[in-house]
């Protein structure tokens, strides 16, 4: 399926006299960019819909002036980037942008990387011809991380566009500015596009879309990243450094499994302290959008580490007597390989509750489908899919990259979506009109997959028992329904302009009663949907849909019937035209799953690596021996896009590394990154040295970081699946192991710009009924937490976060993500 690269239809276009190949249906601007041709553009964002606010991307195509961000390439198109008229328009537009723009470049955070500065210089604006009285606009803080100075804002609407089309929060909108009206004489004297652009600009300014002064969003900071001027800046960064003073360290976000590309931007801490500090995180925002953890959880480095030989020696002793090493997914591939080597050479068990279930699920899936890994990824979904299904994944919390893809498909590919999850989320339906949400009961994930089979499968290919099973849910009945019928009626109407009577045909709808036979799908009812209306809704959703994808989440790995679910997923892939992507739970879960042979349980003397244990290696600086944090070490990480991505050290580290322990224990090469080429090639890795790994995006947006894992596909027979176990449904008070957005682990929690607390998250109503603090009682223990209301949650299920390893939440939940619990109010 998507593994096979489909050859896009290519067309030939001529830009400024040179012929280029471009993908059919691509915007002129993107085609030009992909071929290294520069067309100025301010408001357009790749992967988002054209805003048409700046109008500066004006080009001439086949003799007509068009906006390059909005016009598609056609075979044989002749494009001229600059004509005298266009240059005049562009210069007028830039002059307008400079009207009343404060001359504060000296103090502005954006100075040096400001697109207004750049384009003003590029278009040679050295005088001003336009004027208008300014409006007083006060700087405000929109959230704990966002600082907005409307005085600097040029209302290009990039922030609102990215928030709507990519992030899905739609937290920003344009509101009335209340500024002066444009002088009428400009209409004649100014170039046309410049005038209409100014007219729109003068009327608007950006504000939170909920009508208050504060955004109620996921605080991802992507709006600040895309802001071309200094209007939107992270609160923490305001006036702390100039852009040109910062050194960029290319890296990979350490927290979620999306493998977001980031730059750590470093410079010395202060005049007294010359050690380098991370000031901010930036990204290639045309190709990748970050979540809040990737952008704001950056200062988690282990600063106090020293080469403590005493601790080192006791660590060696601990490893020698250890029976188990307990670790999590906050680990590079190289370190994972070291631990695997320890297992092989010293027989130490490897225990990783975060990854174990995922690894087992992957193995089941591989056995059932013959695919060594899932068949699509988030980038491919955004580029191609127009129908996405998400099962068992708390999109907003678990997998920001998936959430962006799910939303982007709705907004850009005119897509539709099905979202199956027990916890209600008010944000998901806002992604698009064609999003159907099923808040099914806990444990019915199999039924969701059966519904997918029923809706999408090629019935010919399905095994007969599955077909029968699916049919058993269908109930037919006769129903009297009222149907609208449109009739055309002719009527004589007096035309007001001419004063004559004219015959006008009018459309009139009439209601007609009809008796029809209806088949309702019991699966829809079972999953909490409305079977009587679903068929019609689904038909609408399926209109003009060609490319289907399914996202599987962490809930399924921790499901009691995970094996059956993996088989069902494989069956979906084999019988439906659906590609599958799975969310590795947290940072490098995929790498760990591929490299390490994990054991079921821990026993005996345990060495914990960033986890609890009898001897603790910790990158948090709280353990018995210090380890480097993810921003202090080189290495590779595996991402949801099935890539092996290199990450670099941003800040210095003075302690011991795992490799130093390895040298003493079993012998190891000089550096940690010398392990990179030893990564297991039979699991899809390549024998490539770390320093040979590329780390960039191509001009056309192709990800060229690291390398793609080799995947294999073995033809296998259709898996035999079991029926949905309706008895597995959990009833009563249910706790769900789920972190608030932006929190993934102890490291995000350590970062000073992440404010989400370790609390019980519940819907507003539930939180009110619970009071301020509760004890959550499990079969095997309890935990006492403050109650926090999450306005976007609905339903009675409460979320218990697991980002603090020391709280042992994984042990409380055991092999499941949902548990029936008792909630007891605590004063």
């Amino acid at each position: 399926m998507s593994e096979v690269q489909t050859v896009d239809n290519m067309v030939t276009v001529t830009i400024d006299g040179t012929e280029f190949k471009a993908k059919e249906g691509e915007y002129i601007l993107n085609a030009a960019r992909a071929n290294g041709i520069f067309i100025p553009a301010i408001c357009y964002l790749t992967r988002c819909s054209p805003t048409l606010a700046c109008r500066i991307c004006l080009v001439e195509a086949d003799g007509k002036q068009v906006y390059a961000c909005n016009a598609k390439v056609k075979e044989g198109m002749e494009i001229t980037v600059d004509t005298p008229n266009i240059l005049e328009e562009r210069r007028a537009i830039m002059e307008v942008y400079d009207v009343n723009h404060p001359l504060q470049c000296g103090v502005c955070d954006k100075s040096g990387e400001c697109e207004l500065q750049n384009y003003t210089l590029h278009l040679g604006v050295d005088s001003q011809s336009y004027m208008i009285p300014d409006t007083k606009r006060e700087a405000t803080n929109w959230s704990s991380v966002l600082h907005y100075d409307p005085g600097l804002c040029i209302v290009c609407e990039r922030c609102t566009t990215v928030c709507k089309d990519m992030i899905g929060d739609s937290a920003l909108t344009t509101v009335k500015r209340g500024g002066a009206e444009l002088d009428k004489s400009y209409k004649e004297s100014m170039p046309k596009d410049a005038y209409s652009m100014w007219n729109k600009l003068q009327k608007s300014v950006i504000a939170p879309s909920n009508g208050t002064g504060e955004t109620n969003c996921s605080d991802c900071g992507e709006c600040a990243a895309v802001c071309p001027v200094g209007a939107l800046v992270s609160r923490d960064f305001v006036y702390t450094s100039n852009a040109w003073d910062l050194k960029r360290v290319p890296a990979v976000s350490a927290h979620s499994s999306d493998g977001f590309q980031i730059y750590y931007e470093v410079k010395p801490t202060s005049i007294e302290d010359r050690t380098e500090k991370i000031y901010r995180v930036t990204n290639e925002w045309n190709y990748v959008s970050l979540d809040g953890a990737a952008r704001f959880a950056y200062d988690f480095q282990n600063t106090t580490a020293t080469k403590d030989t005493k601790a080192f020696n006791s660590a060696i002793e601990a490893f020698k007597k250890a029976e188990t090493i307990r670790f999590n997914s906050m680990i590079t591939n190289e370190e994972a390989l070291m631990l695997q080597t320890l297992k092989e050479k010293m027989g130490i068990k490897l225990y990783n509750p975060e990854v174990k279930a995922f690894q087992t699920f992957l193995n089941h899936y591989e056995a059932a489908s013959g695919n060594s890994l899932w068949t699509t990824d988030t980038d491919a979904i955004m580029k191609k899919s127009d129908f996405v299904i998400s099962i068992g994944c708390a999109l907003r919390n678990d997998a920001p990259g998936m959430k962006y893809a799910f939303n982007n498909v709705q907004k850009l590919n005119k897509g539709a979506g099905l979202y199956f999850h027990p916890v209600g989320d008010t944000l998901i339906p806002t992604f698009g009109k064609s999003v159907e949400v099923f808040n099914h009961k806990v444990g019915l994930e199999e039924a969701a997959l059966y519904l997918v089979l029923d809706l999408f499968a090629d019935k010919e290919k399905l095994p007969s028992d599955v077909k029968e099973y699916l049919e058993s849910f269908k109930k037919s009945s006769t129903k009297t329904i009222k149907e609208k019928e449109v009739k055309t009626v002719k009527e004589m109407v007096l035309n007001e302009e001419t004063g004559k009577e004219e015959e006008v045909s009018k459309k009139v709808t009439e209601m007609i009663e009809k008796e029809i036979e209806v088949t309702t799908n019991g699966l829809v009812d079972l999953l909490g949907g409305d079977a009587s209306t679903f068929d019609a809704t689904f038909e609408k959703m399926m209109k003009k849909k060609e490319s289907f994808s399914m996202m599987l989440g962490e809930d399924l790995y921790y499901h009691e019937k995970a094996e059956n679910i993996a088989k069902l997923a494989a069956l979906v892939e084999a019988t439906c035209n659906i590609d599958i992507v799975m969310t590795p739970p947290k940072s490098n879960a995929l790498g760990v799953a591929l490299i390490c042979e994990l054991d079921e349980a821990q026993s005996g003397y345990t060495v914990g690596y960033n986890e609890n244990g009898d001897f603790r290696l910790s990158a948090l600086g709280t353990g018995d021996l210090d380890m480097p944090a993810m921003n202090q070490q080189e290495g590779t990480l595996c991402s949801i896009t099935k890539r092996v991505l290199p990450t670099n050290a941003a800040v210095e580290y003075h302690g011991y590394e795992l490799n130093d322990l390895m040298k003493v224990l079993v012998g190891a090469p000089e550096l940690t990154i010398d392990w990179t080429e030893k990564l297991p090639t039979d699991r899809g890795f390549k024998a490539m040295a770390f320093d040979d790994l590329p780390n960039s995006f191509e001009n056309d947006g192709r990800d060229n970081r690291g390398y793609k894992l080799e995947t294999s596909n073995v033809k296998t027979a259709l898996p035999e699946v079991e029926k949905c176990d309706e008895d597995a449904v959990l009833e009563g008070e249910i706790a769900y192991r789920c972190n608030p957005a932006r929190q993934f682990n102890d490291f995000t929690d350590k970062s000073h710009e992440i404010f989400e607390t370790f609390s019980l998250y519940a819907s507003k109503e539930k939180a009110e009924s619970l009071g301020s603090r509760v004890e959550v009682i499990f079969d095997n223990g309890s935990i006492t937490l403050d109650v926090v209301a999450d306005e976007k949650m609905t339903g009675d299920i409460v979320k218990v976060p697991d980002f603090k390893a020391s709280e042992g939440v994984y042990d409380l939940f055991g092999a499941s993500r949902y548990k029936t619990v008792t909630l007891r109010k605590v004063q």
Partner: protein
Amino acid sequence: MGLEQFKNRNVGTQNYTMVDAGHSPKGVLCQFKQVVKRTFKGELFVGLWVTMKAMLKALFANDMHTVKYPFEKLPISPRYRAIHDMLRLLESGHYRCIGCGLCEKICISNCITMDTRYDENQRKEVSEYTINFGRCIFCGYCAEVCPELAIVHGSRYENASEQRAGFSLFEDMLTPIDKLNLQQEYSGFGSVSPNADDNIKQTPLAY
């Protein structure tokens, strides 16, 4: 001052006036006679008298030409580039530096460093500023690039110190607030040219 006199480069054709310097003695006897004549003429005392007069003037008439360095210093050209000064705004007394970091960036010996922050009045505040005078080569770029004429070259040209690296902090260079009235507008390297107004394009204003 006109430059005409420098533009005439025909050296040798000007009207020189020859000084009557007499004739050098010829022969050993003549030279001997000249020595004896000069020795007993008393010209020595003429010289001594000149010195004596100057001394008496200095002692009793308070008319002395010696500059009592280091207690006294000669005024120095505004174009001389000595230790930096940080100027204040004359009206408010607030320091002129806005923390734009241009001096830090342009400094070719990398000797300027500053820390800035967002202050309580929503302004950019320079929380610390330092110049390493062990490295500074007094090129004047910082004064030239400064958009606010905040960092300028002052007249303190004594750079000798016990250590090779000498640092100055913001406060050391800043005009003391009680001496604000003595602050001189800088006319050296990078200052506004007298015809600056003529070179500016007018921007229309809606007020």
